[in-house]
């Protein structure tokens, strides 16, 4: 898997092993239709991870359409009035998760639960973990597209 040129996408990087890649893609897809937490909120978190990891490819990818002002102001979300309290709770947790999951505070976890319940908290940390892997592997493989499936 020489990647000097870089595969075009997650799918092409893992095309040699569909028996493992396909269940991974199915898991990724499942996050965009959850009952417990809106896809738009997860997209905000995915994009914030892309910013924190410095992945231009993941940042440019659009899994869910968001209001343009949210994309424009995402880097400075704490100072912006374009994010709801629920989105702020998730973004706050997502930022810590990206650096050190051990550092997530009870207050941050409780804030997410206040909006989305226990199921929502579990769904969020599941999604953050999978999104994080997509960004990291994309950087290692130098993919040119953020498309996962």
């Amino acid at each position, binding site marked *: *898997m*020489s*990647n*000097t040129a*870089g595969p075009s996408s997650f799918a092409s*990087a*893992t095309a*040699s*092993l569909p*028996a*493992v*890649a*396909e*269940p*991974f893609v*199915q*898991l990724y897809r*499942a*996050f965009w*239709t*959850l*009952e*417990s937490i809106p896809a738009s909120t997860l997209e905000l978190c995915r994009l914030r991870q892309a910013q924190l*990891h410095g992945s231009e490819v993941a940042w440019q990818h659009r899994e869910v359409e968001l209001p343009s002002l949210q994309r424009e102001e995402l880097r400075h979300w704490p100072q912006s009035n374009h994010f709801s309290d629920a989105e702020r709770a998730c973004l706050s*947790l997502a930022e810590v*998760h990206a650096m050190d*999951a*051990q550092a*997530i505070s*009870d207050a941050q*976890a*409780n804030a997410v*639960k206040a909006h989305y319940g*226990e*199921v929502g*908290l*579990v*769904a969020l*940390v*599941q999604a*953050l*973990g*999978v999104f*994080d*892997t*997509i*960004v*990291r*592997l994309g*950087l*290692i*493989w*130098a993919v040119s597209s953020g498309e996962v499936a």
Partner: protein
Amino acid sequence: MAKAARVSPPDSSTGNLIRDSAMGLVAETIDHYVALTLAIWDKGPLGAADIELARLRSAHHVGCVVCKAVRYDVAVADGLDERQASRIGDDISAGDFSPRQQLILQFVDLYLHSPGLPEKSMQRALDAEFSSEEQAHLALALAYFNSSSRCAVALGGMPDSLPRFEMPVPR
């Protein structure tokens, strides 16, 4: 690290560790987690001992006490060296790892600490040692276990320490 669990597991007793854990609360994802777990252990070209080394290196970095204590029985049966496993957090050159094992751990470290294109020398070494299928397997297994360890830590309830224990792959 949160001492108290932040969520309660589902009221189920399927006997599958993943389904009966807090992960099972999310109905839309649980079947996919179980399927992916089985695919990683059963459907890739890497041996279980190689996968386990990558999993343990990641678990050590994330700080997941449970993940660090677990030894999957398939990895032990595949020849996992407990002396190496117990030193998985050490400097790679200090653990008496084979060149192949060192490459696995170097890939894990790249993923964890500075994800980006591997140095050309490292990529050449990976290409010489691992097939394209094996490299994809290593990447996907690491991705899965790292994300799972982060999930476990984020949901709290970790003990301060736990002795090593063997368990089967949840099926």
